[in-house]
């Protein structure tokens, strides 16, 4: 469904991405792992044109476009068919939880208010935030804000949802509620690309794991293979450091 190849990105002279390829099929939950500075977030942002890649191709179903030279019409098309969940939520500060979810529908897609509201409530219900629909982001905890962020992403019925370290800014005791919501989406067969540091979660939800380091894909495969018998030394070092005593029963 989504195939991206040869993504390059440089900041000044610093090469962040050195030719990254991924493929996402319908229903896939692709988890991208890797040490910080490996380019995971930049890569994800390039897919949504929040950053302009210096090079790279994208095949989104039948549409073929350049990640570097896409027209604003093509950019708009990709953004309308995808959704993004941010590390620091980025809820619209001047909108209530419900309005956060419906804005993309009423303004971005010109849907009738009543219909959008109905969808908005349903999405908030799904993430357990229906009771707080009238609250502003400043009145919600980080975990609650991120759940609204996920509801906002789902409301537009995206073909793929990108998650950029959705739990990294959360207090440890709030991580669980957000991961539970994402896990539920995975069970429903939603197509997702997730950058995360939550290894246990990754092992549970991923259908495909990509390990990135230094701007390249070092290794990829089913979670079982990557977590239990990684081939590359780089992957092994990373996993050893990040999960010294976690047991996996997959």
């Amino acid at each position, binding site marked *: 469904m989504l195939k991206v190849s040869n993504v390059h990105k440089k900041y000044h002279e610093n090469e962040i991405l050195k030719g990254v390829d991924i493929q996402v099929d319908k229903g896939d939950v692709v988890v991208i792992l890797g040490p910080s500075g490996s380019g995971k977030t930049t890569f994800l942002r390039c897919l949504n044109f929040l950053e302009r890649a210096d090079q790279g191709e994208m095949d989104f179903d039948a549409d073929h476009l350049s990640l570097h030279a896409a027209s604003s019409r093509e950019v708009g098309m990709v953004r309308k068919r995808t959704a993004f969940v941010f590390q620091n939520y980025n809820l619209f500060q001047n909108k209530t939880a419900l309005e956060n979810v419906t804005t*993309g529908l009423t303004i971005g897609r010109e849907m009738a208010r009543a219909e959008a509201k109905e969808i908005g409530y349903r999405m908030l219900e799904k993430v357990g935030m229906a009771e707080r629909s009238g609250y*502003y982001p400043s009145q919600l905890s980080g975990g609650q804000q991120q759940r609204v962020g996920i509801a906002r992403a789902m409301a537009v019925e995206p073909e793929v949802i990108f998650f950029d370290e959705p739990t990294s800014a959360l207090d440890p005791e709030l991580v669980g509620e957000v991961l539970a919501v994402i896990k539920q989406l995975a069970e429903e067969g939603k197509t997702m690309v997730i950058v995360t540091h939550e290894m246990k979660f990754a092992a549970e939800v991923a259908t495909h794991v990509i390990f990135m380091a230094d701007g390249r894909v070092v290794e990829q495969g089913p979670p079982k293979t990557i977590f239990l018998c990684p081939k590359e030394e780089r992957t092994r070092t990373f996993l050893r450091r990040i999960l010294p005593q976690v047991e996996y029963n997959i």
Partner: protein
Amino acid sequence: MELDYDFLATTFLLVLTAVPVTLKLTAVSLLFSAPFAFGIALLRRQAAGLLQRLAAAYVTFMRGTPMVLQILMIYSLLPSLLNALSQTLRLELDVFSLDPIWYAYAVFTLNTTALFSEVLRSGLGSVADGQLEAALCAGLTKPQAYIHIILPQAMTAAMPNICNLTVNLIKGTSLAFLMTVKDMTASAKVAASYGYNYIEAYMDVLAGYIIVCSIIQAIFYFAEQHVGRYRLSRGKQV
């Protein structure tokens, strides 16, 4: 020293009748300057280029020169320039019979544009970049993102400064008497000149400005509470 209370009272009423002129000067200048100020603010937030430098130079010039001088320059230059222009173009405009309030609008608009653009620039700067990114990802276009997400937040943050700007402009319009516009200050001065009751006249003007400025500040206070309810309600349960 004896105060002439009758004069004090009648002149106060006279000053009050000139309040609309002062408010008109202020409102028209603010409204005319707003789109230009917004344009300059947006321009100056982008990477430096020729246009950005021109905008910056304009702001520096306007902020760096006394308003009295700007008034004197425009009031002596603009009519001659307009006259020359109308003669070359054979427009047969009678420039010198133009209501001087138009010169006042011109000066205050030029001046306010520069100050307003800085207020808006800092307001826009206070909105996190992630707000625009989130709006674009939600499928909004850039103009939609600005109208529905960025500007409401920027304006809320800018409210105290816009209030400052407005109150300063109200007080600044007192210089309009230099252009023979009959605002609050001018009316009182004219009344005082007949019997040399300057002390009373100035007291009246002072009271007039305090009343007007207090009301404006109160309006802004409530407006800020209203548009900023999303952040002022912090901690409170809805």
